């Protein structure tokens, strides 16, 4: 019941805020209030039931919807989804705080953001394939409009490209889901674990479209064409959700549906998924290196580090799987944080071109300091959140696929290179543009959007067990169901 309430509060909030007639200030406070509720509930769930998520009766619901086909309204939280469930609640709040660049039609902006939030929360809590799909697609139109209405001048082609790519993927995924549910006799995700009694050929035929749809969403590199334009064109607060949560709808689908439900069907693809992960890591790093635009650099870096999730998940061993589940969360934290900081820098200096920036550390010590912190986290430095998850993904990946695992490790070096190069050009050196002499550091509102994420990077860096502890039972259950180890 708590889960259902948490999922649908944003939807209710979307309706309320679009009916609200108030000035900008009222709207912003109302949005903050609405966004705070799911976060409080998710925090409550963590402290009250974190030790035994799947055993907590008041977290799950199972209502019959279409009895003959065994489709139901089934929601519940487990270790695989809780981290992202929590992060969705947090990042939406951050997005509300970071929406200072949105001036026009503010209440519509928040309403769309909240509709998308219901979809995202729903995905991470769904225990039914049809419900998963409905929530999955519920995010599509709001994201399209968020980018399309409030993005920069290139927004229209970017938004429609995003829409067509991911709709193509998700429709293929739907066909796979429906075939799986029909042949397996139920649409319940927990009941289908282990293959639902399907033969290997059937599983492969079903796994192919599902994996395709999920990999487009991630996006894995040959299918990534839509991403850059959208990331670069969208407003900063949409970036927070777009990079922090949306890719995880894809990786979460791989981790909690494709692999556990179709183990025999996914098996032949696993080396290739790991290989795609490596391609993401290396391609992302090289292209990031070449970007003249700071935001594009972060976007490619974001694609790159998503690769670790694929490598770890494809390993299907305890270390790799735990790493992948954790990397989803840590990636979300650092990439959201970097996008917010880039937004602040771009707003103050009026440019995102790395070549035109320089020496900002002297004028914006806090902003650049946090930029450095986020970059160091992204490089995988110890005692910052990404370290544990990347390390585990690589270890697990190496154990299962030595070549892919070794190449993935190379990615850490590459990311260190381009991040340090970027920091050097943006932060240090003399101030190149006299106009920057007068710019100011991040204001309190901007700091409020960054500091929670920075704190989480440190906390999870020092105590990764806070999350690994609650996800481990779920990971072990999945590995037992698919007969791995």
């Amino acid at each position, binding site marked *: 019941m708590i889960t259902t309430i948490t999922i649908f509060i944003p939807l209710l909030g979307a309706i309320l805020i679009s009916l609200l007639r108030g000035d900008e200030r009222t709207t912003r406070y109302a949005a903050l209030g609405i966004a705070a509720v799911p976060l409080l509930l998710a925090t409550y769930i963590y402290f009250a039931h974190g030790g035994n998520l799947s055993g907590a009766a008041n977290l799950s619901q199972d209502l019959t*919807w279409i*009895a003959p086909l065994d489709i139901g309204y089934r929601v519940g939280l487990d270790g695989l989804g809780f981290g992202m469930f929590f992060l969705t609640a947090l990042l939406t709040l951050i997005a509300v705080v970071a929406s200072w660049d949105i001036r026009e039609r503010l209440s519509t902006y928040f309403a769309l953001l909240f509709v998308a939030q219901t979809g995202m929360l729903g995905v991470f809590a769904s225990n039914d394939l049809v419900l998963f799909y409905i929530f999955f697609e519920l995010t599509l139109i709001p994201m399209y409009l968020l980018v399309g209405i409030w993005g920069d001048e290139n927004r229209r082609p970017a938004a*429609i490209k995003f829409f*067509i790519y991911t709709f193509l993927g998700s429709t293929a995924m739907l066909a796979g889901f429906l075939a799986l549910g029909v*042949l397996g006799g139920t649409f319940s995700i927990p009941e289908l674990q282990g293959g639902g009694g399907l033969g290997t050929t059937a599983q492969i035929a079903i796994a192919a479209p599902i994996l395709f749809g999920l990999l487009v969403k991630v996006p894995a590199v040959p299918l990534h064409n839509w991403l850059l334009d959208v990331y670069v064109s969208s407003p900063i607060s949409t970036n927070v959700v777009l990079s922090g949560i949306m890719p995880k709808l894809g990786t979460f689908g791989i981790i909690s549906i494709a692999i556990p439900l179709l183990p025999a069907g996914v098996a032949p693809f696993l080396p290739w998924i790991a290989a795609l992960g490596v391609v993401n890591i290396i391609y992302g790093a090289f292209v990031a290196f070449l970007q003249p635009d700071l935001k594009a650099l972060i976007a490619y870096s974001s694609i790159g580090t998503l690769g670790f999730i694929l490598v770890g998940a494809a390993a299907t061993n305890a270390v790799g799987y735990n790493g992948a589940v954790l990397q989803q969360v840590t990636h979300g934290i650092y990439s959201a944080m970097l996008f917010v900081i880039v937004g602040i820098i771009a707003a103050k200096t009026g440019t995102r071109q790395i070549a035109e920036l320089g020496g900002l550390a002297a004028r914006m010590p806090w902003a650049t300091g946090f930029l450095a912190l986020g970059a160091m986290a992204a490089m995988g430095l110890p005692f910052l959140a990404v370290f544990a998850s990347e390390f585990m993904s690589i270890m697990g990946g190496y154990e299962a696929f030595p070549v892919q695992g070794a190449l993935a490790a190379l990615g850490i070096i590459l990311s260190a290179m381009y991040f340090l190069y970027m920091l050097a050009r943006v932060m240090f050196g003399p101030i190149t543009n006299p106009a920057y002499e007068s710019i100011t550091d991040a204001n309190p509102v901007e700091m409020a959007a960054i500091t929670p994420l920075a704190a989480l990077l440190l906390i999870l860096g020092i105590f990764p067990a806070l999350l690994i502890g609650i996800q481990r039972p779920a990971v072990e259950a999945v590995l037992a169901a698919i007969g791995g180890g």
Partner: protein
Amino acid sequence: MPVTGEAIVGLLPEIIATVFLFVVLLGGVFAGERNSGLVGALATLGALATFASAAVLLAVGFEGTFFGDSYAVDNFSLFFKLIVSGTAFFTVIAATRWAGTTGDAPEYMTLILSVVVGAMLLASMRDLFGLFLALEIATIPSYAMVAFDRSRRESAEGGMKYLVTGVIASSVLLYGLVLIYGVTGSANLTQVAEAFSGELTPVGLVGIGLMLSGFAFKLSAAPFHFWTPDAYQGAPTSAAAFLSVAPKAATFAVLLRILVEGLPGATTTWASILAVIAIITMFVGNLSALRQRNVRRMLAFSSVAHSGYILVAFAAIQGGGQQTGIQAVLIYSAAYAVMNLGAFFAIDLVGEDAKSFNGLFKTQPALALCMGVFMAALVGIPPFSGFFGKAWVILAGAQSGSILVYAAVGALVINSVISLPYYFGIVRNMFLEEPVSGGVARKDDGGVRFSVYALAILTTVFILFFGLLVTLTGASGLL
């Protein structure tokens, strides 16, 4: 063939619609031609009463066959009667003001109610010649409806094209029915089924082929769809909206009944033919719609494409997909009725040119939201109605176990993606573009506005009634 009391109860929706048909016509005479409001109110009441009677029959589980097994009242036919009369309800409300301006409101309303009577008869017919008669009762008034707008030349042109192709289609269909009758020696579907249980004769095959071609005309399935864009573009908007939904749904119903009850022995034959027609229809409809700048023509081609989607469900009625396939046709018809009707009415308020939708979200947010809902539903994005139609077609396809049907399902998936740019072209214009400078003169019509809002709500809350719909269609009475 005695007319029993039970038969009268079973025929209540048709009787009520017929009575109101005359009441509207005579009411017009007595109230004078200027009083279109009264005529509209009477017609609305008629549609509502028809809907209510069908709903009551469905709720009490009324079932029976009458007139020598030639007329069946069952869940299946009642479901379609609800779609037809419900569609008529919204159409009549939306058409009242406009019909008044033509000065011939009673005639227009009478035509709508005649189509309703014909379409409802059609959904129940179990007799080859009875169904032909019912089909003509539904079709002949619709020619007049298309040509009704005398202020626009396109209306007459569209009506003429519709008439000529419609008459050809009817003759082809009749020829096919006669051949089937010749082979089986009976016009009753039960006896046709018995006669067709063995090997298919060449004449029987030709009969089935001609009949399917005739139906393909009526359902605007490719390659017999050419009349559709001209007829829909020329017709008054309320006529285009109504004809794209109500008689079409009833035609799907009767085709389903013929195939499932009359020709179960030839399932592989007709399912294969329909799978091929479906694939061609989806591609032709969507690829043609992509090129349209006129929203009305675009929706006409979109209706071609949606006929293709429904025909995939027909092709899936084999193997393990029988039950789900029939369900899919019913669910899709209901889902399509609300979203397509709404989209047409929204055009009536905004304009035919795609550009007239520019910036609608800024000037009329509620209307833009409604049109956005219809477009998303037509693409098949959840949680809107169209998604459930498509999902059930895919489900039936997955159960059918036929390679050809798998191909058709694959084509459906691809076509959903092809359709995205043209539907969302409208969404882009409404939400992302600026309003055309100087503004567009838009008419405001309370009746149309009511219908648009109500249909948008129905398209959205479809998800809440979906479980009920599945239960209802699960015991359709067919099979």
